[in-house]
């Protein structure tokens, strides 16, 4: 998904009515937003955080210092790790790490839904769509989290809904 398309999805999920126009910069097609006042903003997570503030939903950036830092950490993870590498091996490691991180968590910050969940969901979508049933079961915590986020009101929009099977089929993998 192109960054501009992703930001448009985010705008809608935040309930922002006027659609911004984004240009893209460089070979990595980094999104650029021309704001009304002040300089333009460059970068997916930078613009995303800006939109959240514009929608007066600051709580999506975290409420405490700790939460704020964690949200930004996963946003950075999204643009450096999820977008950065896409060899099969890298993705396997990424899903494995994320799976063990989410072992005891509902959302990335723990108990609160944040921008980090939204952008990681958008970023992982293209990989999760391609997972086999067995792999989805292997990364059980990621699957649980992903399924939860895709059902979160207003987030998924036109993206395809990924099917997760409720019953375990490959019990011996555990």
């Amino acid at each position, binding site marked *: 998904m192109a960054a501009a398309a992703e930001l448009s999805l985010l705008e809608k999920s935040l309930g922002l009515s006027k659609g911004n*126009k984004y*240009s*893209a*910069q*460089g*070979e*990595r*097609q*980094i999104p650029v937003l*021309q704001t*009304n*006042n*002040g*300089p333009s*903003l*460059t*970068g*997916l*997570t*930078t613009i995303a*955080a*800006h939109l959240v503030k514009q929608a007066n939903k600051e709580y999506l*950036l975290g409420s405490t*210092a*700790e939460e*704020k*830092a*964690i949200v*930004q*950490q996963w*946003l*950075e*993870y999204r*643009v*450096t790790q999820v977008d*950065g590498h896409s060899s099969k091996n890298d993705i396997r*490691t990424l899903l*494995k*790490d994320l799976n*063990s*991180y989410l*072992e005891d968590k509902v959302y990335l910050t*723990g108990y609160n839904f944040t921008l980090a969940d939204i952008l990681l969901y958008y970023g992982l979508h293209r990989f999760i769509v391609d997972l086999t049933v067995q792999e989805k079961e292997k990364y059980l915590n990621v699957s649980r989290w992903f399924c939860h986020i895709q059902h979160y009101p207003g987030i998924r929009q036109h993206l395809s809904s990924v099917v997760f099977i409720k019953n375990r089929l490959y019990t011996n993998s555990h």
Partner: protein
Amino acid sequence: MRLFVSEGVPGCLPVLAAAGRARGRAEVLISTVGPEDCVVPFLTRPKVPVLQLDSGNYLFSTSAICRYFFLLSGWEQDDLTNQWLEWEATELQPALSAALYYLVVQGKKGEDVLGSVRRALTHIDHSLSRQNCPFLAGETESLADIVLWGALYPLLQDPAYLPEELSALHSWFQTLSTQEPCQRAAETVLKQQGVLALRPYLQKQPQPSPTEGRAVTNEPEEEELATLSEEEIAMAVTAWEKGLESLPPLRPQQNPVYSRLRQWNTLYLCGTDEYGTATETKALEEGLTPQEICDKYHIIHADIYRWFNISFDIFGRTTTPQQTKITQDIFQQLLKRGFVWQDTVEQLRCEHCARFLADRFVEGMCPFCGYEEARGDQCDKCGKLINAVELKKPQCKVCRSCPVVQSTQHLFLDLPKLEKRLEEWLGRTLPGSDWTPNAQFITRSWLRDGLKPRCITRDLKWGTPVPLEGFEDKVFYVWFDATIGYLSITANYTDQWERWWKNPEQVDLYQFMAKDNVPFHSLVFPCSALGAEDNYTLVSHLIATEYLNYEDGKFSKSRGVGVFGDMAQDTGIPADIWRFYLLYIRPEGQDSAFSWTDLLLKNNSELLNNLGNFINRAGMFVSKFFGGYVPEMVLTPDDQRLLAHVTLELQHYHQLLEKVRIRDALRSILTISRHGNQYIQVNEPWKRIKGSEADRQRAGTVTGLAVNIAALLSVMLQPYMPTVSATIQAQLQLPPPACSILLTNFLCTLPAGHQIGTVSPLFQKLENDQIESLRQRFGGGQLEETFDLKAKTSLKPAVVETVTTARPQQIQALMDEVTKQGNFVRELKAQKADKNEVAAEVAKLLDLKKQLAVAEGKPPEAPKGKKKK
């Protein structure tokens, strides 16, 4: 919480430097682990530094750890910092890791190392110098600085990898590196081994992929082409083919203002505000009557605007009967509705001149420091504000007799009572408007402090008379009636003035000013107009600029430093070049500075080599290869893409100008001509014209497309450089409707078979010696400037004076030598001369500066630049 760090791991630098921020808010235990230790249980690969929080959570991102420390200290995150941190993670880090890998693991040197990071370093340097702030996010050091410093330190601590020409980066880096927390972090992590301390860590890292390591050219602002969709290309082609047909009929009277290019009904006005004390004082000084003074200066001002080709519909003045009529009417309405009240004020009165004295007409002894010549409002010596009645031994400035304190009546505008209406209006107006951030900020801060009643009368003769009994000797305060000038000037232009000024539903009012004038336009006038309840048109978009500085200091009329409006025409530089450069550096968003060297550079690079070169080549090809007739164009997919790119940039130009981003929109013009130059360069029509039939056809298409781009540029240039625009249009014989209407699409306005006129160069090269002599003529040698400021801020001006007057010739001679040597060094650097040679000349320069400092009796400046490690 526990912070895990490791020697020789670069990420530990910023983290340790930032850890101090959390001191007093949380206890940070620092543990040293090996670089390969797996501290975070859920990560497969080793990661240091890591912060284990008391909640059990882990922060494993260097930036996130630093951010957390800053958040603990009460800092709030902002867009700019986020942007820097995202850039650091996605752009800088890959480039830096590659550079460090080449340097430390592969033992490469010089450009092989620097090549991969040069673009990133240049980006930082440009951002720093463009915003003119010592730090990345403003005036003070913040999160972005620490994170970037930490990332860059291992490489840049070796002077070989801190390019000399990136001077802003240079001084930023030096400032941070000398701070104590940073120094300590550097010592802990690098153990005084320099970059080699990172060797064990870097050896474990994967070899950088070739894309990350690619040598990037040193083009500072190379625009990358945006990717286009098929749709965008198709739309651009359709629009292009319609050509002249799509232009609407022309409205009469076209002038170079953007809104007129859009065929919006526009009234463009300005004027001189002529009443007030300043005029009376000046009149006394020059021995003229106030009216004569105003007539004289109004003509001077009008001439300046005319010379600059500013196309006001009317350039009016406030000393007209219309002004009196409208001001008095607004006043009567305010009085009737109870927004004006009278109060008694104690004031000095000169019996001899038979009038009350405005502050500027009194002098006396400062009640605080005893200075003899304190003014009625402020003491020049101790700087304290003075209430004129408190002056000891007051004197009337006109007749030197001693005034007496008497009570007198004044009128006050009840701003507190109007504040609520004003806030309601602002609440309706501001959202979605294009008020500049500084205008909004200034307005809000005045409102936050609460509006105070404002005295609107003065004891002067030169002003709008107050239509009230007992106020025959008084006039309205200039700031009550100056902003009403816009209305009265319109009334002098057309008797239909109320259709502009009492028509808020249909009129969009844009006001342009420097930021110091904001309160009168955003608060005082709107309050008067709202209180008068007469459906006045209020400002919809208040556009305020920041300040423009001169070279490295301020413009100063009294010290003769700087170029002022009336002098620009004596420089021999055409008005359009001035317009171009001043808009190119227009202080939008932040202060900017006028620089002679930069003016020369921008003229020679942007105007001459980019814009002028492109337009001239396009026209020359038509005359030389095609006998002056635009050739047939057969568009290939490549050409269609170019159409779409130009269209995109044109739309960008429109978006920016609709938002009054004048400076940025100028960049779009230059970008299009850069596209054009590349297009010509790649397709080489001068070679193809000699080739096969197909080649000749190709040459025709390229030439035709290029000359159409030139035609488009001529229209886009109109608001910026009207004379140049007209010259291009005459050279290309652009058909009349296409000359002065700009649509949002790029059209073929010069169809095949169109005959163009004679093409000639548009711009002239500015030469170094020409600019150097201008610089000397208008002052602003950096040394004089700092010296002057020193003298001014010194608390003991008398001392400085004695020193300087003792040996003025000697000092002047030294100054000249320093300037000469400075220029010589700059030249050497510009020519990329041998390093040793430059160093020797720099040493001479420093020595001269030291001698000068001694002669001036100042402590010698600390040497700037590189510190030897």
